[in-house]
């Protein structure tokens, strides 16, 4: 030990350097074109050296610990690398998406990547909901038929198993774990004393919290990628032409894919170029754009009014009993039809505007967003309107009935009179809407794409004009419609998951089948767009929409939890004045007393307002810091560009771009301030040497001060 301690600082440094060098050699060993035996010998030598002396770098007594720490670090790095590899192989559908990408371009593929991401998020939500709410109730709660809220009422029992009733989510469906009304309001259930109502509320809130976190994290990650575009714009076409083939491809199908992707990449570049070079007739274009926007606002207004009208009508229908199938489902049908008809209408009107396809896509998305938003909120308002109306009426009803509960005779649960359950009703509405949305989407693909492709292909043999080249030909994949469909579907799931825990499960199934179905449909029935454009590098536009929808679907649920009183006879919060009373109850009964007083203080407005102010200040500060960084980035980029231009010009022997240099050259024309030109090469074109630029010596200008 003493001899190691007596090593001087300088020796330590030298040793450290040598160890570092050996490590570097180990790292690049693979790239060297050596014989295997030689490599192995070298590797062993280096590794022995490193092992022997790395431990010596720790000082004295800590040496063993240092060696141990180094070994653990190595093992940890290896584990991390293996885990990364494992994670990459676990990514599902990568090959499918690559195939779609090489045939249809990056923008179509970005939809499928988005779909896959949504699937991942929904799986997590599904896990949360099922694991913490549904499974405990099923395993530890009371079984079906034991209490009134879990039993089909006597009156409905004969029809409870009918297919039409089940399709409407009544009958046995209504009184199952799928909906809010099934859950019991016992404070703790089972041996583990699982607090179900608390868990239900927490999962409901946690769903939003998790989704928010995931969306914002993805947005932040995408924002990083979008920044560094660099200077690849210098030789785009030349590079594509000379370096795009991958000579390691040996498989015929892969080669086909590669052809397709090279073609697509050329087309994308062409479109980008064209857009940069269009000339403008500004006034006409502005007028057309204003006109288009005006027409679209009229459409939006019309659709909003239509929905309002239909909802009012459905309220009238609710009072009658003899309804045809159309009248029962009128609301869902109209909403789906609007969602089907308006987007193509918007697209036709948008042709007046003549934007770059990427920008036109964004406008289209924005407009469809406004459409769906209007529809959804009108629907919601109408729904809550009904709920409010009903509640007043039924509040009296249940109050009256409770008087007779003092000595309840033992009755069969299905005979007990129970009050209405508005949460389950709302849940049923959401589930019906989701299911009809799924059906309409799948049917549209089947008819609009598949049947059309089949007809065009086979009828073409005996038709007067060429069906494939002109109308109707094969369909193109509708990116904006599909993305928005996905985003709004997710919004509905977020809204409805609180009232119908089974909805998340339905959504997971839907996304899974959608992935396979749409991949197949795209490859089999669609043709690539005529104008293929690159998706913008940051996918933040989709994420931004998703974030907005998340907030908008958060509002109704939070309003419900905070303001509306829960139904008396069903659900985990029955009997309480407000839903969040569960939290109060838990704090009072389960947590130690001082926490209760602490939370009481924390809820004081005197504390909350300064906290909010602090957060606002923090946001402002971070915003200014980020702006400063962006500014510095732009400056650095400009400097790099100038340095590059300087070098380019120096090599080409043309005039300098730097103004100072130019002035100096003008003052001293005979003497070149730039380095001499390289000797002319054989077989090359003519080079202008620097001296030939200067024809006449100008009189030297005397410097005056």
């Amino acid at each position, binding site marked *: 030990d003493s001899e190691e301690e007596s090593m001087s600082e300088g020796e330590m440094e030298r040793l450290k350097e040598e160890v570092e060098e050996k490590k570097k050699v180990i790292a690049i060993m693979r790239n*060297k*074109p050596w*014989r*295997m035996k030689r490599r192995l010998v070298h590797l062993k030598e280096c590794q022995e050296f490193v092992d022997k002396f790395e431990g010596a770098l720790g000082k004295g007594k800590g040496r063993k610990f240092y060696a141990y720490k180094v070994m653990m670090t190595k093992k940890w790095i290896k584990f991390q690398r293996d885990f990364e590899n494992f994670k990459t192989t676990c990514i599902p559908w990568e090959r499918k998406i690559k195939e779609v990408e090489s045939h249809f371009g990056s923008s179509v593929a970005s939809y499928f990547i988005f779909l896959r991401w949504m699937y991942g998020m929904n799986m997590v939500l599904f896990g949360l909901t099922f694991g913490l709410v549904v499974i405990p109730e099923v395993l530890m709660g009371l079984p079906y038929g034991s209490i009134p809220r879990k039993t089909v009422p006597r009156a409905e029992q004969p029809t409870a198993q009918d297919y039409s009733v089940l399709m409407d989510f009544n009958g046995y469906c209504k009184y199952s774990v799928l909906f809010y009304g099934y859950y019991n309001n016992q404070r703790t259930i089972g041996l583990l004393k699982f607090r179900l109502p608390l868990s239900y509320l927490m999962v409901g809130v946690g769903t939003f919290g998790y989704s928010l976190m995931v969306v914002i994290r993805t947005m932040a990650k995408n924002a990083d990628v979008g920044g560094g575009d660099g200077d690849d714009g*210098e*030789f*785009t*076409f*030349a*590079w594509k*032409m*000379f*370096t*795009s*083939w991958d*000579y*390691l*491809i*040996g*498989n*015929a199908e892969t*080669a086909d894919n590669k*052809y397709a992707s*090279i*073609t697509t990449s*050329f*087309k994308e570049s*062409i479109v980008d*170029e064209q857009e940069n070079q269009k000339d403008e007739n500004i006034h006409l274009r502005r007028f057309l754009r204003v006109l288009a926007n005006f027409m679209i606002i009229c459409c939006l207004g019309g659709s909003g009014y239509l929905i309002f009208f239909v909802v009012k009508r459905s309220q009238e229908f609710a009072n009658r009993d003899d309804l045809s199938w159309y009248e029962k489902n009128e609301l869902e049908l109209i909403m789906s039809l609007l969602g089907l008809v308006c987007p193509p209408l918007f697209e036709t009107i948008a042709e007046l505007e003549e934007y770059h396809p990427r920008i036109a896509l964004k406008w289209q998305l924005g407009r469809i967003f406004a459409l769906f938003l209007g529809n959804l909120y009108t629907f919601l308002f109408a729904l809550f309107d009904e709920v409010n109306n009903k509640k007043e009426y039924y509040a009296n009803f249940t109050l009256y009935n409770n008087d007779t509960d003092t000595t309840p005779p033992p009755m069969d649960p299905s005979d007990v009179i129970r009050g209405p359950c508005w949460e389950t009703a709302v849940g049923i509405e959401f589930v019906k809407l989701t299911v009809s949305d799924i059906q309409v989407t799948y049917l549209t693909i089947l008819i609009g794409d598949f049947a059309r492709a089949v007809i065009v292909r086979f009828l073409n043999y005996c038709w007067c004009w060429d069906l494939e080249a002109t109308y109707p030909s094969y369909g193109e994949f509708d990116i904006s419609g599909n993305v928005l469909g996905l985003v709004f579907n997710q919004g509905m799931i977020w809204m409805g998951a609180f009232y119908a825990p089974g909805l998340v499960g339905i959504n997971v199934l839907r996304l899974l089948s959608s992935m396979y179905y749409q991949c197949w449909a795209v490859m089999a029935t669609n043709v690539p767009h005529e104008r293929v454009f690159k998706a913008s590098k940051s996918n933040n536009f989709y994420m931004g929409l998703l974030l907005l929808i998340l907030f908008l679907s958060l509002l109704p649920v939070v309003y419900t939890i905070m303001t509306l009183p829960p139904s008396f006879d069903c659900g985990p919060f029955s009997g309480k004045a407000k839903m969040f009373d569960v939290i109060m109850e838990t704090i009072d009964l389960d947590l130690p007393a001082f926490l209760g007083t602490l939370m009481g203080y924390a809820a004081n407005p005197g504390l909350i307002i300064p906290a909010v102010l602090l957060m606002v200040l923090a946001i402002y500060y971070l915003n200014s810091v980020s702006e400063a960084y962006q500014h510095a980035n732009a400056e650095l980029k400009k400097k790099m560009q100038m340095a590059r231009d300087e070098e380019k010009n120096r090599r*080409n022997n043309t005039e300098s771009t730097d103004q100072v240099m130019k002035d100096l050259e003008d003052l001293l024309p005979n003497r070149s301030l730039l380095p001499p030109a390289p000797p002319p*090469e054989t*077989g*090359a*074109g*003519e*080079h202008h040497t620097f001296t030939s630029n200067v024809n006449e010596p100008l009189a030297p200008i005397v410097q005056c001060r």
Partner: protein
Amino acid sequence: MGSRASTLLREEEIEEIKKETGFSHSQITRLYSRFTSLDKGENGTLSREDFQRIPELAINPLGDRIINAFFPEGEDQVNFRGFMRTLAHFRPIEDNEKNKDPTASEPLNSRSNKLLFAFRLYDLDRDDKISRDELLQVLRMMVGVNISDEQLGSIADRTIQEADQNGDNSISFNEFIKVLEKVDVEQKMSIRFLH
């Protein structure tokens, strides 16, 4: 496999090839066995059909031109020396080679020779310039009929515009070097001959 190959290749030949191309002894032996396995006619030379049996070359859009690069002017057979001479272009560049004496001629696998090899693939008429027509031919091979002729013409024009510096509407070898300056040619045009 091994014994037949080494009996037909003499030591002096191996030494000469080593000096000319820079491959090591075992690499040359290994490549010789590959040469003989491609040589179905067993006459010590390769023909164009022999090369076309390699799937990666058959699929490559410029495969025919690459195969052509193996054969000297006007001939239809290439012997082992010629084979090695062409393959030498794809030898990876080693660090210690940069220290060799500057008076010796440039090795076949230098960056500039690699680029010259690629340049000759495009410049069919050997006039040291890639003209617009030659670019069009290459584009048609790479992209087929999926893009209209008009657009192909624009792409060719644009490529020349990006690369051309002396205004002669074609790409000379120096301009070609300039275009691919930032591309890692040493890595892309090297095949690591494994032992």
